C-alpha cells in the first residue's frame, strides 16, 4: 500500500523539487502543505506517515511542527529539508525528534542516500 507522504514547504518550487527527487520506485501518496499549520493538520489527518519538512515558514515554522508532533505523540517519520544549514539547526531538529536533516537544495541522490540509510526504501 502506498505510504502517505507529506511535503511541507512554503515554496512551490521547493515542494516540486522534493517531489521530483523522490525515488521512482517508491510507492507514495503525496500531499502538499504550504505552512506548518497545514502541515500539522495533514499529519493529524493521516496524510503524513512520512514527512519532508522545511524550517522557515509562515504561520507555523518547522520547529513548531516538530514540537506539536512530539506533544501530540503523532506517529510519523520527519526528515527536515532546510536552507538553514547551521549545525545548531540540525542539532535542534534532531533533539525535537527529526530522523535526519538534508541541506537545500535537494536532489535525488541526496534523498535516496538518506532514505536507504534508514532502510526506508
Amino acid at each position, binding site marked *: 500500500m502506498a505510504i502517505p507522504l507529506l511535503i511541507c514547504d*512554503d*515554496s*512551490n*518550487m*521547493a515542494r*516540486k*523539487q522534493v517531489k*521530483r527527487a523522490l525515488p521512482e520506485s517508491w510507492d507514495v501518496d503525496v500531499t502538499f502543505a504550504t505552512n506548518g499549520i497545514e502541515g500539522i493538520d495533514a499529519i493529524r489527518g493521516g496524510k503524513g506517515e512520512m514527512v519532508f519538512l522545511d524550517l*522557515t*515558514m*509562515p504561520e507555523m515554522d518547522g520547529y513548531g511542527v516538530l514540537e506539536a508532533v512530539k506533544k501530540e505523540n503523532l506517529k510519523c517519520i520527519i526528515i527536515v529539508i*532546510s*536552507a*538553514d*544549514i*547551521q549545525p*545548531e*539547526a540540525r542539532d*535542534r531538529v534532531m533533539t525535537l525528534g527529526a530522523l535526519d536533516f538534508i541541506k*537545500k*537544495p535537494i536532489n535525488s541522490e541526496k534523498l535516496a542516500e538518506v532514505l536507504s540509510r534508514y532502510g526506508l526504501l
Partner: protein
Amino acid sequence: MNELKVFTEDQRDCLQEIVNIAMGSAGDSLARVVETFVRLSIPKIRTIRPNDMASALVSLSSSESDTVSAVRQSFQCDKGQDGLRGEALVVFSQESFQDLAELMAYDEILTPEAEQELLLDISNILNGACLNGIASQLSTSLSYSPPSILGQGMPVDELVQREALTWDQALSVEINYSLENRSFSCDLLLLMPGSSIDYLCIKLEELIEED
C-alpha cells in the same frame, strides 16, 4: 516614469527560494563567527520607488534601535550593466556592537574605530555569503566594491538622508539576522535596478523551465 516591474507568481516563488538558500548560507557564516545560533526569518522581496526608500529603511527591524550604523557595498556581475548589479546595505542596531564585542571576545573597550572594524567585517561576511549564494544559483558571479561606512551611531532618520535611490525603481530584498537571547539585530537590504529585474526574470524563467 516606467511602469513598476512585476514578477510572475512562479518567478517570485523561485526568487524567494533562491534568496532563502543564500540567506541560510550567510546565517551559517555569521553563526560560525559569533558562535551563536542565528535566527532567520522569511526574506521580504518587493519592488520599490525612490520615494519608498526612506520608509524601507525606517521599517527595518534593526531600525527600532535609537541609533543605527550602516555599511554600503556595490556589486556587479561580469555581464556589466545588463546583468545582476546593485547595492547591498547592512544596517546594525546600536545594541548589536556590545553583543558582538562580547561574542567575539574583544577585550578592549569598543572604540568607534573598533566598531568600524566590526561593522566592515560582519558586513563582508553577510554580503559575501548571501550575494555569492544568489549568484551561484543563477550561474553567474559577482564582483564587489570595497565596503564603506554609510553612517555610524546615528538615528535612522539621518541615515535616510544619506541613501537615495538613483534608479526609478528597484528590487528590494530585505533579510534580517538576529541572535537568540541577544539584542543583536542587523538587516541586509539588497537594492537592484530595473535592468537587474529584467535580467532576473529571464534567469528565473530558465530555472522554472528546467523544472
